[in-house]
């Protein structure tokens, strides 16, 4: 049994999820009205979406075995290899094939076979001794035209604890990180849930099929100083002020009618006090003499 998970990748991970969401689940126009990105809100929204989407993937991935080969795969494939050994010496074997589609919006999909019985036993064994489950992909360049230029020397590796892999029933999230020019610079793998609680996985069937979520992460464009917005806001404010000159007045200009009598009163009373005090003091002095 083999399975393909397909994602089409845009520049920002939140958008990826959004698109995915709208494609597969609800054809609701979610990915609009983001003309003015408020980073924090995006982050919140994306987290919510992320949770929704992952759930969605989980529930569906088992059933969508049928629609395999999409026609748009004019890309190329590289092997995704994994290794889990009791002796902790990496021996990589092919886990599946990553189909990479180059271009401005690179996408990736994965064809992978299920684990053999022998492997399942071994994985459980490795998990028991707290070994590592490693994956690796060759270094590739997504923007090149020719096949020869695409693949480079060396591998990118990542790992999770084997017990986490077992306890999550082979549910892993693999991301390929690419840089500005389209080189794949790193791969990361996490399992969901990520913890090792020591729960026994009795059912062998749970360890048969990989439940993989795959994505390509491109670098985010870091924002520069927001001068335009700030200037706009300042202009708006000055316009507002210009409209009602009442508010433009300073504190003193507004409340002079209260302040002046108060000050006058204070001055008068202060002078009274002092002259009074002085007089009293003088009198006391005089009395003493």
């Amino acid at each position: 049994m083999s399975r393909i998970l397909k994602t089409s990748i845009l520049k920002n991970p939140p958008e990826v999820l959004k698109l995915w969401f709208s494609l597969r689940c609800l054809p609701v126009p979610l990915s609009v009205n983001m003309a003015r990105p408020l980073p924090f809100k995006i982050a919140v929204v994306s987290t919510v979406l992320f949770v929704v989407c992952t759930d969605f993937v989980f529930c569906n991935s088992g059933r969508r075995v049928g629609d395999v080969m999409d026609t748009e795969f004019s890309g190329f494939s590289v092997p995704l290899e994994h290794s889990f050994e009791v002796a902790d010496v990496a021996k990589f074997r092919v886990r599946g094939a990553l189909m990479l589609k180059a271009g401005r919006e690179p996408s990736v999909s994965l064809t992978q076979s299920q684990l053999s019985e022998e492997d399942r036993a071994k994985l459980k064994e490795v998990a028991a001794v707290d070994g590592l489950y490693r994956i690796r992909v060759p270094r590739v360049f997504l923007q090149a035209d020719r096949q020869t230029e695409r693949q480079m020397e060396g591998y990118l590796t990542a790992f999770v604890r084997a017990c986490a892999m077992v306890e999550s029933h082979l549910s892993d999230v693999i991301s390929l990180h690419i840089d500005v020019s389209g080189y794949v610079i790193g791969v990361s793998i996490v399992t969901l849930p990520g913890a090792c609680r020591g729960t026994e996985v009795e059912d062998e069937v749970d360890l048969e099929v990989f439940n993989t979520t795959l994505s390509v992460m491109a670098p985010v464009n870091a924002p520069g100083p927001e001068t335009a917005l700030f200037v706009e806001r300042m202009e708006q404010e000055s316009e507002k002020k210009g409209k009602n000159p009442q508010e433009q007045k300073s504190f003193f200009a507004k409340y002079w009618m209260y302040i002046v009598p108060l000050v006058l009163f204070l001055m008068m009373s202060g002078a009274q006090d002092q002259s009074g005090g002085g007089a009293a003091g003088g009198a006391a002095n005089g009395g003493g003499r």
Partner: protein
Amino acid sequence: MKVEHVSNSFFLCDPSFTFIEVVYHSALQGAAPSNHYVRRKHVDFRLPPFLEEQTKATAAMAKLIWFCLKCILLCSTIEAVFEDQVGKFDWRQQYIGKVRFSHFDTHVQSSKKVLLATENNVFASINTRTGELFWRHVDMTGPEGNIDALLQHGQDAVLVVGDGRQLRSWDINIGGLNWEIVLDSGSFQSACLVGYQDTVKHVAVLKKTVISLHYLSNGHQKWIENLPESETVDFQAVYSGGNGEVYVLGVVPHSHIAIVAYSLDDGEIIKQISVEAPWLSNIQASCVVIGQGMLTCVDSAAVSLYTLDLHVQSQMTQIPLQSLGLEATPGFQPVLVSTQPNPARPPLSEFFLQLGPEHHLLLQLNSGQIVTLRDFKPAMLVSFATPGEKTVAAVMSPKNKTACSLNLFSAESGRRLLDTTLIFNLDPNGGKPEKLYVQAFLKKDDSVGYRAMVQTEDHTLTFIQQPGRVMWTREEALSDVVTMEMVDLPLTGTQAELEGEFGKKADGLLSMLLKRLSSQLILLQAWIAHLWKLFYDARKPRSLVKNDVTIENLSRDEFNLQKMMVMVTASGKLFGIDSKTGTILWRHYLDNIPSNAAFKLMVQRTTAHFPHPPQCTLLIKDKDTGLATLHVFNPIFGKKSHVTPPALLQPMLQSLMLPIMDQEYAKVLLLVDDQYKVSAFPSTKNVLQQLQEMASSIFFYLVDSNQGKLSGYRLRTDLSTELIWEIVMPTEVQRIVSVKGKRPNEHVHSQGRVMGDRSVLYKYLNPNLLAVVTESTDLHPERSFIGILLIDGVTGRIIHEAVQRKTRGPVHVVHSENWVVYEYWSTKSRRNEFSVIELYEGMELYNSTVFSSLDRPHAPQVLQQSYIFPSSISTMEATLTEKGITSRHLLIGLPSGGILSLPKMFLDPRRPEIMSEQSREENLIPYAPELLIRSEWFINYNQTVSRVRGIYTAPSGLESTCLVVAYGLDIYQTRVYPSKQFDVLKDDYDYMLISSVLFALFFATMISKRLAEVKLLNRAWR
């Protein structure tokens, strides 16, 4: 790198200050004086004269109350130092660097100045009596500010700067610039003063292809001439003997010498000759002019001297050294030293010939014959000096292992002058003497007196006077501090004794009792001694009681504000400096340090484990070969530890301190060699066992910036390592410029931020997070970028990846808590910009008890905002406090010499563009694209710190206080209070008032109680 636990403690309100307050109160301060004026006027006008006295008193009273009120208001908010606080908590030391040229000011008798030009492009004048700076000029760093030559005439000093780019004349009395002119381009060769008929009016500058003559008075160019055949001939030296001619000497290596004589008046070539000299390759290294224009060269191959009269001869005369009865040390390039006391007259015919490292000869050219005047063996350093008419030669020769002796000899005859011996004691923790500068003067009885300035290998300048009194020393190595640490001072003897009692192992009831008794006896003794000292000191007048800091009376103060600064300098000299006063308490010179060494200083054991001495380890690594050595020492006394460090035979890749300790409380240092084998130091059985147990949770990473590779490793139980993750940046696109982790001693007190709606936004506090900065290799302003990657150091997971387009470095990064701040240059807008990234887990924590990198499946939320900064910066660091409760500031070293303390709250990606009720509740400042530099944020007020290269911050015992050391050419130490001194009572706190009120209340209670009792009794009787 280890998976560490983060305690789940809460403190959700940071005591951060509100900046609006400051503005408000400073406005009030400005308005205050007019108030007084009005009041007094008023009083004068109203009152009859006989009541004036009382009025004055009342007015004064009123004034006082006003003043008090203002004081209370102002003191509570103002952050800058008061005038009387200057220098109370801070100090600055100014340095100049390794001396290249030095001239004593001789034009005035009894002058106190010495002019120094240094390798650090500094030109300074130093007081020879005290060693303090009169003035100092700091030029640009790098080759643009390089001082090529220093010539002194009268009260003018002429400098050639920047490979002959600029010619400057300084007034040496006040350090003012007389004039400056820009010379034509061309690489600088040599410069000399040109005199004629006993007056010096010109300076000649020789470059690769031209020679130019300038007036000393205004720098104007008198003439400039192209050098003939400059394509083939390598012109290297210029000489003038005061006869109206300027000689330029060039060489065609291994062929001939070319000599061109120019007329002083118009630059016309008078004479041009070439002389066969197939053995010569460099004139400056092997030739000098002596006597009446006699060019004298030394050739080590033929072991001979060659002489050539510049005026007449066209052939060199060979004088084999053997004919003079001399022998050269094999393998040593002989050196000639001559002197020309007055540029308007020819040089002396006496000169020094150095034949070996400790062998000098004073020779004389006498009517074409060379005569030996005196043979100095052993003699390390020689120098000429001219007090008045006669020239003397100073010779330094070793006396014994710890001292050298200096003697003066008459240059004419080679006779020793009487009573001129000076003993120079070598510092056992310093280097060997390297250069000798002599200031000779005529005493009243016409005998020659002198002082000497000795420069040693460790860049120390020592100024000595007869018969060997050290007048001052300057540790110029401190101008190039590479790394530093602050170490707590040890407890006092009594405190330590108490600590020690609990530290010792218990052997039984009786011995424990004895120990307790003995330690209490010691305590009693110390107390009595303290009382006696108090009594003794009280009788003495106050001025006599000095508390000098010495290594013996060092002890920790109440709030741990005084610490030992351990500084490592590029020359390989280590210093221990008292942070309170800046006194150098110990120094230690490590010889045979490679010139391109990289240093890493680590504190293995602090002073907290009393019977065991504190221990620091310095890793010195040769950058080329990768071979490393360890120097283990006690940071309080500077002594080398008796612990023998392991010999490191393999090139080192990485070193890391683990939080695990051996039985003697020394933290374990892991060293990874190029075979990826790990060795531990200390490597006792106990340590190895602990390592085996923890091996699977010890991770580390290596960075190879040449290949753009970041790789993670895990330790195995047999101390070998395994590669577990790998990230590769394509080197043709970008290169890794810096990798910043968090400081291991950093504490974060609050795990989240309270939002306006009272919910909590939790911080993503990953202790293993690395901030990796890359720069693009393409430097085109449209395509260049910098990349920021946040990578988990244990799992190698890329948490966040961002690019800042159309920017370039240099990038300065600070990584702390849950934020990364970096500064870069925007090529698009041509300005410096700051950017801040903050990471949050969200509204709930994934696992609130333990943080483990291996179990954080969700990526954090990333917020980022950028700002414009009006200045470029030199370095950046964040403040650090004991518990992390105090709000953070960024300390920014500016090229102008200021150190700016910028509150982190201005760099907060949650600053809203439009203020809402919630953000107001949260105390967020509305977003403004520009960060302003407020002058009250400069923590070093007017104490400019030149060329800041690093800022070091250390927590003190007070939560509010952070100790700061900025180092570069200067060293500046101060304290900062990012949230003000919220845990300290003010200096002017009114103890009297409070205690008297308390007492009064107490008595009032007593009295009223008594009265109540009486009343009750009376009622009972009724």
